[in-house]
Every structure is written in structure tokens, then in C-alpha cells.
């Protein structure tokens, strides 16, 4: 590559990074709005492919959900550092989707501004087109209050939007579904969330929903998938059924393919579950 080409590339990349990143977003709290915390360092912004510079391999998954921009601001209390990451996605379901993929099952609790996934070192939330990660910079516990407070402060400035955590549960009218286990999958990488799902032939895969369902027989995981065409769904189904998958049943109807997985559950039960989910389907917003 010539010097001139390098310079042009650098200039284009610079413009690409700066475009849409030049102004601090209104949802970031002002200095006087947050107790104990002070912004530390400059606000950083990453657009499109530049996300790879911030999180390298982690960027792929965000792109599957329609990543647009990321704002990163660090805050300090007396001796600890808190990092706020606000991921802006193309739409609300995309933001709720990446939230569902990242949350730890059973970790959700109600903050002042709504539901969030809370661990000792991180608070994860989704509102409108945004997914928020508020985390302890040193990954050590002890500042849960500050993490929740900052998350609430940012969430209070974001519109509810059409999505949010409730979108996930509302989309699945599945009988026996365990709330908080729903995961929206928007691309083949998302299928790697479970070892058995990673084996699905993903050509033409468009969208998937994963959730745990409770029944008298035991708990099973159900994956509903939609393909670009009936032909691609049939191809994936044929590839799946050509191999042995103990503990997993599957069913096909047009461009929809459903899987039910449960260890030591009767095959007949898993097959019935697949048929039931095929009938109940997914509520599209």
C-alpha cells in the first residue's frame, strides 16, 4: 500500500469514526446528577466496524444484532472505577436481543427504572434501542450500589421504546416458559450459545428464540428457528436428522424449524413439545 493510499485510508477511517460521534448523547448524566461519581477521562465512541478495535472478537455478535454505535465513559468514586458502555442498535428488538444473550439466567431484578440483570460486578439493562453495561473496572465486588445508581440514572433519560426486557417474554406465548430464560438469536453466531444448537446447519438462518420450559416431565430447552426459505429450512432439517442427536427432538413446518432438548426426558415428550411450539409460534411485534 502506498503512503498516499494509507493516508487516504486513515482520513476515511477518521471521518467514519467521527461522524455521528461528535456530540455527547443526552442520556449521559451531568456531573451534578450522580452522587459519589465523577466522569474520568474522555468520552469514547465507536461506530460500525471500529467496534472491533474496542472489543475485537466480541464485536461479531453485536453486529449480528444490528450494532450502530457504542459510547464508553469511565467514572470514578473515591477509589474505584466504573465503566459505562451504551451500545446503540438499529432497533429495540436488537438491543433486547443482545441483552438476552448476555444476561445471566436468574440474575434479573427490578431497579427504580425497570428490570436489569445484576451481578456483583456488573449491571446490564436494555431500553429502547440501547443496551447498557455498567461494570466495575477492576471486576471486583463491593460497588453494586453505585453500579445500579448509574444504570438507573442513564435509563431514566432513555425512552421506554417498544422493546426493553418485557419484549422478550411477550414475544413467546409458550406454555410453561420460564421467565427470564428467553434469548433472541439474530444470526448463526448466536446459535453457539448451546453446544447442541451450534450443530444446526445455519445456511439461510434468519432468527431464533431459545427458552426453557417447565413441565411435569422435567425442564426442557426449546429453540424456535426461522429460515429465509422453506427450502433452506428443509435442508437444515435434513442435515440435522441425518445424524444422531440424543436428547434433542426436532420438527419442521414450512420455513420454521423447532428443536426441544432435555437430558433423560422421553423422546415422545420432546417431540410433542416441538409440535406444541410449532403451533404456538412467536408473536412478532
Amino acid at each position: 500500500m502506498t503512503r498516499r493510499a494509507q493516508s487516504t485510508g486513515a482520513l476515511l477511517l477518521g471521518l467514519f469514526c467521527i461522524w455521528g460521534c461528535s456530540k455527547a448523547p443526552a442520556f449521559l448524566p451531568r456531573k451534578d446528577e450522580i452522587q459519589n461519581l465523577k466522569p474520568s477521562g474522555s468520552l469514547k465512541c465507536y461506530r460500525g466496524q471500529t467496534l472491533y478495535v474496542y472489543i475485537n472478537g466480541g464485536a461479531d455478535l453485536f453486529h449480528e444484532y444490528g450494532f450502530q454505535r457504542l459510547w464508553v465513559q469511565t467514572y470514578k468514586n473515591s477509589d474505584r472505577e466504573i465503566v459505562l458502555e451504551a451500545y446503540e442498535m438499529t432497533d429495540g428488538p436488537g438491543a433486547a436481543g443482545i441483552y438476552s444473550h448476555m444476561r445471566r439466567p436468574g440474575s434479573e431484578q427490578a431497579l427504580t427504572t425497570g428490570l436489569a440483570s445484576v451481578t456483583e460486578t456488573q449491571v446490564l439493562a436494555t431500553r429502547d434501542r440501547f443496551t447498557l453495561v455498567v461494570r466495575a473496572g477492576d471486576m471486583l465486588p463491593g460497588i453494586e450500589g453505585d453500579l445500579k445508581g448509574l444504570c438507573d440514572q442513564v435509563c431514566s433519560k432513555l425512552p421506554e421504546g417498544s422493546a426493553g426486557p418485557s419484549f422478550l417474554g411477550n414475544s413467546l406465548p409458550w406454555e410453561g416458559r420460564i421467565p427470564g430464560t428467553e434469548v433472541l438469536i439474530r444470526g448463526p453466531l448466536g446459535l453457539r450459545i448451546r453446544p447442541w444448537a451450534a450443530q444446526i446447519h445455519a445456511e439461510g438462518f434468519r432468527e431464533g428464540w431459545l427458552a426453557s420450559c417447565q413441565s411435569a416431565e422435567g425442564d426442557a430447552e426449546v429453540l424456535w428457528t426461522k429460515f429465509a426459505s422453506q427450502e433452506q429450512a428443509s435442508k437444515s432439517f435434513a442435515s440435522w436428522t441425518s445424524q444422531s442427536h440424543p436428547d434433542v427432538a426436532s420438527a419442521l413446518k414450512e420455513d420454521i424449524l423447532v428443536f426441544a432438548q432435555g437430558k433423560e426426558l422421553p423422546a415422545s415428550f420432546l417431540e410433542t413439545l416441538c409440535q406444541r411450539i410449532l403451533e404456538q409460534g412467536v408473536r412478532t411485534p
Partner: protein
Amino acid sequence: MSKTRNGPPLEASVRGTAGDRRQFLKASLGAVAASLLPMSCSRLALPRRNSLPNPFVLDGKPLLVVVIGDDPATMIEAGLEALGGMRKLASRGKEALLKPNYVVGRPYPITTALDFTSSLVGYLKKVGLLKIGIYESPGSRLFTPMRPETNMEILGVIAEARKLGVEIVAGDLFARDEFCLVYDPSWSMKTPVGVHKRLIHAGLVINIPVLKRHSAAGMTCALKNHFGSVMMADRLVAHKQEGKGFDRRLVEFADAVRPELTLVDARSILARSGPENGDVVSGVRRMILSGDMVAVDAYCANLLAEHDATFSPEMISEQLRHAQSLGLGQPDLSQVQIVEVTT
């Protein structure tokens, strides 16, 4: 028996066929020749890095040492001694370049632990290495927020390196002139890869990854750690490969570098999700050492699966299969000599 410019006689204990020995001698001489060359690259693609064939073998099988413990310095010393000692790499000279994982400015086990790196540097100095560098390329100097040094500053690596007298090599992932084009006809993608010059010309490369989940690769450990060894354009092209193409390309990045030694600090691991946001599992208390990256990943995949119900070694089977086909190592653990050491 041959003598090299920098080190003692070549290890007579290296086992293998006459072909292996010829390859070994060729590689050793190549390393000496490379050390005499200036840090430059031709415009034509080079062959993969001229590394040493795995000298850590026992009864014809690659040796893999698993150390159980808590103190990194004790674990490193016990592990390397069980492996046969750094003397097996003496032909590579007195300089080493470490390749950690500093993909983000977040602490261990998302990135390589500072106490682990310091302990390793201490050990390498003790056994006679004169110059040690730490290479990573997580950013670019084109824009201040993306500087390649930033993550290392946040993690305290730069301050620690200054104290230890270790050179920091912060590669600029957009700077084409920092990288040499490397190509091998056996690769699945018929295009060269830009590998950082310092790695290509290093006599001895020591790979020091962490063990964690990865949304695109399933797992990141010895092989995947070399995403940081190549320039950004190649990383992006790899990410755009569908299906198994990504898995194969990441193996080819590792094949281009072929480090002599891998040490995985798995005292803790990142489970369920990654490479950034996941569940930290403490108390794993393992360190894995080998000259065979493929055996390391095969072993670590089983270890990760023990602690992460959402992961199965099957998820990286294509990586291991392709790595074996390139002659990078042995994924079948029944063909690996595994030695366990408790400290």
C-alpha cells in the same frame, strides 16, 4: 551435534525421525539467520515463521504439563521444569517475545494476568534470557482513544514492564509497514496474512493466552490468541468468513506464527460468554504448558467444558481438525503425554 551463534549445543534429547531432525536443524539455523537480518519484509509473501519443531516430546508424543496450584511463580517454575526446561529452546537464542492476550483493558481472566506475566519474566531472566519483550496489537495510533498502548496502560503492564526492564512492543493494527505478508499454500484461504514483523523475526515466541469463551470462535486459548498477531484487515476478513471459514482462518493465523511454547494461566477462566462479558470461574487452579498448541487447546476445551455447561469441545472440532491437517499439533489427547504436577 551443531553449535549455534548464541546458545549451547543443540539438545541431543530431541526425539523424532531423521526428517524431524533435519527440520529441526533447518529451523535453528533459520532462526540465527533471521536474527542477523534487519527487521524488514520483502514485498513478496514470506513462508510461515521459521519456528522450532516442538522439542517438548516424550516417547515420540508431545508433552503437555498440567500444574495444579495457586502461586504463579511456583507453578511456572514447576511446569517448565517438568516440561524439560528452557534449555530445550536454547538454540533460539537469548531473546524472547511474549504474546499475551490484552484484547481489552479488563483484568484477568479476560486478559493475561499481570502476576503471571511478571513471574514468567522473572523465571526467564533467572534461566539466562537476556532480552524479553511483550507484544500485543489491540489498537492503532491513528486515533488517540484507540492507541495500542491503552489496554496495557489500564492493566498496569507498561508500568510493570518498565520495572522489570521488559520491552513493550505495541503493534499498530492499521500500520501496514509494521507487518510482513506470510503465506502457505496449504491454507484454506489463498491469500497472505500480515503478521507483525517483530513476531516473524523473533528467535523465540512464547504464547501466553487465557482460557475463555468466545462468541465467534466458541473458545479462545492457544490458537485463537494469534488474532492479535495479524493486522486488522486480516482480522476483519476472517470475521466475514461464514461457517467453518472463520475457524480455519484463525488456525492459519496461529500457523503463520508457530510459537515455540504455550503457557495457559487457567487459575481462573471465563465461562458462559466471552471474550469480554462472561462468568468468572475462580478456583480452577490450573496452568497448562506445552510446545503443542493443538494439544493445549484440546486439553483446555475439556477443562472449559467441565466448568461451563454451555460449552462442548465439539464446538472447536473444526479448529483442531484443520490445525492437525496443517501439522500444527496433536488434538487426540490419547496421543499426548500428559504430566500432572501439584505445587
